[in-house]
């Protein structure tokens, strides 16, 4: 189930993540990366400030993507040998909420991209030799599948930064 897309303004938010180049399907890369983030943050005494997220830095479909698998933090933290420290930039974002199994997320992404195009809006994105580089393209995962076993209730927020 998809919500109506909308435009929201977001403040900048720091995060810590494991950066990986991945192919689709991700397999266990995402869950392993998030587990690594969680373990390292626990070791460093840093708490998550919000739900886990995937930040798609570069997309080169159908070959590979560069993704930050991470969580927001209260304040900017230092990177280390595992974690990259980044900031989700403030600005205007297009947002859509998907409720249901994660396998339907490709269709949800397509729906939000179609809406952005239909509205005459433009993503914060530029092409590069490595693929399309995004200003900030997020999938946020507020539902913990280990707690909520019913896949039809899994919520995912798609939040794409728009060009200024």
């Amino acid at each position, binding site marked *: 189930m998809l919500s109506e897309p909308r435009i929201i303004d977001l403040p900048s938010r720091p995060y810590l993540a494991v*950066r990986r*180049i991945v*192919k689709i399907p991700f397999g266990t890369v995402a869950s392993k990366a998030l587990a690594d983030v969680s373990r390292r943050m626990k070791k460093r005494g840093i708490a998550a400030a919000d739900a886990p997220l995937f930040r798609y830095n*570069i997309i*080169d479909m159908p070959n*590979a*993507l*560069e993704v930050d698998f991470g969580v927001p933090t209260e304040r900017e933290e230092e990177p280390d040998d595992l974690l990259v420290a980044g900031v989700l930039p403030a600005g205007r974002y297009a947002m859509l909420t998907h409720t249901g199994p994660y396998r339907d997320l490709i269709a949800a992404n397509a729906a939000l991209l179609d809406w952005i195009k239909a509205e005459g809006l433009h993503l914060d994105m530029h092409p590069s*030799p*490595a693929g399309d580089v995004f200003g900030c393209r997020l999938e946020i995962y507020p539902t913990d599948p280990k707690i909520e076993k019913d896949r039809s209730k899994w919520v995912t927020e798609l939040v794409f930064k728009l060009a200024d």
Partner: protein
Amino acid sequence: MGAKQPMSVIDKAIWFIEGNFNRSPSLDDIARATGVSRFSLSRSFSWGTGMPVMAYLRARRLTEAWKALRDGAPSILAVALEAGYSSHEGFTRAFRDHFGITPDEVRSGCGIDERLLTEPIKMEDWNMADLEEPRRETRDAFTLVGLGGRFEMGGGNAIPALWQRFQPYEGTLGEVPGYWYGVCGDWREDFFYMAGVEVKRIPADLPPELTTYRFPAQEYLVFRHEAHLSELNRTFAAIFGRYIPDHGYEPVDCFEFYDEGFDPQTGLGGIEIWVPAKGKHQR
């Protein structure tokens, strides 16, 4: 058919690297796969191949990435992933540092200096001398003074120059006459070498450019090098690339031992390499 030699530590390391470089193995991972400590692997590999193990890994990953890009791989990210990199930025930086151009420039047809490519090292490429079984010697603690410095693996030509610079000090240090020592150790990407002599007491007026080194009382494996001094690297490669790891010893600081039988003018006369017999119990 002749009996096949068992895989050495270096064989195992190369085999493991070739099968795993897209997983970005760490030095610890490679050491685990070869069954020796990371320090032992590091030193054995450097001596056996003339290249630090992680530099070899990096060069192999980037060489295969270059081949894929040259052959028209459609995706830089996919090539980076295959080469074991986790970010586009990291891959691009490593690639540019190694080849001097970016992955995208390769795809655009820019050439590289192909001497920068690293193919898998084959066993026959190793330049190892045949070794006699070492004799065992126990020696009391002793102190050396001399000129020391750090040298790159394979950059052995700088060592004769070090000996030349040390020559003016000889006879002024109250040293034990007739013996000279070349201390080798602290292997990292490079290694420490000191050209020196044995002293019973460190001179009070020791020139500040000279350094001291003390070996404790211990047991040594003593290897003999009879060939010309210019072939000493081959003996070191055989000692540290094969004998030491294969017999379960740790490659700790050692010394070359020159006596009056050695002729520095001709480079002949033979020398000994004394390696502390450490780590046998860890087998």
